[in-house]
């Protein structure tokens, strides 16, 4: 366990540099994008002098390098700047929206892992069989549909057509269903395909033959012997994909008017609200980093061979 702790500490140290990189890249990108925050905020009627005054107040008249150094210094003191549009600390606005996005991504992950694992298991236990071919076709479809289109189709079918579920907004658990399912679509396909190939490979291993020679049923062989070894790559991908899911959430949240980080950041980009864009980016980078570390720890827990490699 000491070895795992050391691995986590090492990964966190590397993570500091990753965060620095993410902060720097987004700092440059928001400023490289066309559009002037002061001009956007003041609107088309503002005169040059007003714009210049606001630009100076925001500190955007300083040389880029000076802005960068001050920004990094602020971040190190956990000051993520003020949103000029909202008139309050950017991170405060981000944390206000965070729970909604967490609800959405966790639900989508749960759906994707449950459905993806189940599909992958039945398909992989008999590769080339009828079920396998159906699952393959379904997963290719799930992965190919663009998220916004899936969202609109689900709304048309279940909200407007069948009137089973609300089409947008928040409030009840029912509001969560369509956005979470939409977000889960491509993720489910990834989990299913990976589980399928991983299970199919495990079922060809000699230890599966040993398990059969013990008189176990095919179900016991699959769940007791093949599954555990097939989970190792799946866990890593789930960890990595959960980070990507936060990116996908941006689109889904806008389709379903879901008040999470996605809609916040789209708003912030449109209004050149640098502080909010930077704060969201840093938060997502941090979450992805933590998820990757969690995936690595699980990976080590699942595979005893890596457990000792880490220790040595």
């Amino acid at each position, binding site marked *: 366990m000491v070895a795992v702790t050391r691995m986590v500490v090492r990964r966190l140290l590397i993570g500091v540099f990753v965060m620095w990189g993410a902060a720097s890249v987004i700092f440059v990108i928001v400023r490289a994008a066309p559009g002037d925050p002061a001009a956007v905020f003041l609107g088309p009627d503002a005169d040059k002098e007003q714009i210049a005054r606001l630009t100076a107040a925001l500190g955007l008249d300083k040389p880029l390098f000076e802005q960068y150094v001050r920004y990094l210094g602020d971040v190190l003191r956990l000051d993520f700047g003020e949103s000029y549009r909202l008139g309050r600390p950017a991170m405060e606005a981000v944390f206000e929206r965070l729970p909604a996005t967490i609800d959405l991504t966790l639900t989508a992950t749960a759906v994707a892992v449950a459905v993806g694992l189940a599909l992958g298991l039945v398909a992989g236990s008999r590769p080339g069989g009828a079920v396998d071919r159906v699952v393959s076709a379904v997963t290719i479809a799930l992965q190919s549909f663009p998220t916004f289109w899936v969202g609109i189709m689900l709304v048309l079918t279940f909200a407007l057509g069948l009137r089973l579920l609300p089409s947008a907004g928040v409030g009840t658990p029912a509001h969560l269903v369509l956005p979470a399912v939409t977000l889960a679509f491509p993720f489910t396909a990834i989990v299913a395909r990976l589980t399928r190939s991983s299970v199919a490979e495990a079922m060809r*291993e*000699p*230890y599966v*033959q*040993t*398990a*059969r*020679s*013990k*008189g*176990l*049923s095919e179900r*016991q062989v699959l769940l*007791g*012997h093949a599954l*555990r*070894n097939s989970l*190792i790559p799946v866990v890593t991908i789930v960890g990595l994909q959960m980070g990507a899911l936060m990116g996908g959430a941006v689109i889904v949240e806008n389709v379903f008017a879901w008040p999470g980080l996605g809609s916040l950041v789209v708003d912030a980009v449109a209004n050149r609200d640098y502080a909010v864009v930077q704060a969201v980016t840093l938060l997502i980078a941090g979450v992805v980093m933590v998820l990757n570390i969690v995936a690595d720890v699980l990976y080590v827990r*699942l*595979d*005893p*061979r890596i457990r*000792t490699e880490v220790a040595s």
Partner: protein
Amino acid sequence: MGGRVTAQRPDGTGAVNPPPGTPLLQVEDLVIDLPDPQGDVVRVVDGVSFDVPAGTTVGLIGESGSGKTMTALAVIGLLPDRAATGGRLLWRGADLLRPETDWRRVRGHQISMIFQDPLAALNPSLTIGRQVGEILRRAGRPRAEVRRAVIDLLDRAGVPDPERRMGDYPYEFSGGLRQRAMIALALAGNPALLLADEPTTALDVTVQARILRLLRSIQQEGLSMLLVSHDLRVIAHVADQVVVMYAGRVAERGPAAEVLRRPAHPYTRALVASVPAVRTRTALADPLPGTPATPAHRPSGCAFHPRCPLARDRCRAEVPPAREVAPGRWSACHFAEEVLTP
């Protein structure tokens, strides 16, 4: 009366009283067809017959492709799904090849198997103890009892310090210890027959000898064994009876000591002659001439005829049936008598 009824139960659980003298396993005219990657059906095992009497060890010997492993897999019902079988496999008098066989009650509990590569045959992510105890745990035995049984099994199989080492994973074991763990695993369900497929081939020579000694001691506990090997020395060490296979057919069978000392088939003779003697420098081994026939390219008549020094026209035309050429000695050679008395 009860004997007749129970003999029909293919799971063997009720067959406690088979007619006296019935061999544990009777392989009768076993045929196995397997499609090759091109989709052509190949008869990998072609009319193989032999018995495994209770308490004896039968050695199945042959080159790779002779069908020996397929024969063993058929006995435990682990042939590939695509395989088609014919003939009969009588286990305590009941045919295992019938579709109603409940393999889950046969495997592990009646017949179990150990494999060539113990590292691949053990699950890498489960502890040795868990794998050895699985049959007992699934049978619903209490935890403490399973634990005691696992320690006992590992101890019997010669794993030192079993209480501590049962918590290890397979990669933490040496090759020899892995095979010992595999043997403990195979014995856990208290089977009557152990199938051993090249159990020493993947091991170091010094370890091989120790595993063979272990197999011999297990044998003395009354377990029957079907030992599959290409190594004549392994067979000579452990087997009571020997079945020599060539290209999916039985070349000859009989008591191991006699068959190896005085072969009744030119193939066996060539096989024995090809084993190098360790102590003498003078007797260089005679390698077998030609390449081994495979079931996919089986020569006409006697499959061994292209490599046989005694081959005549008849051998090219006529498949020799297995005949009893001396008491207990069966040979599938038209000229077995000539081979027996040179």
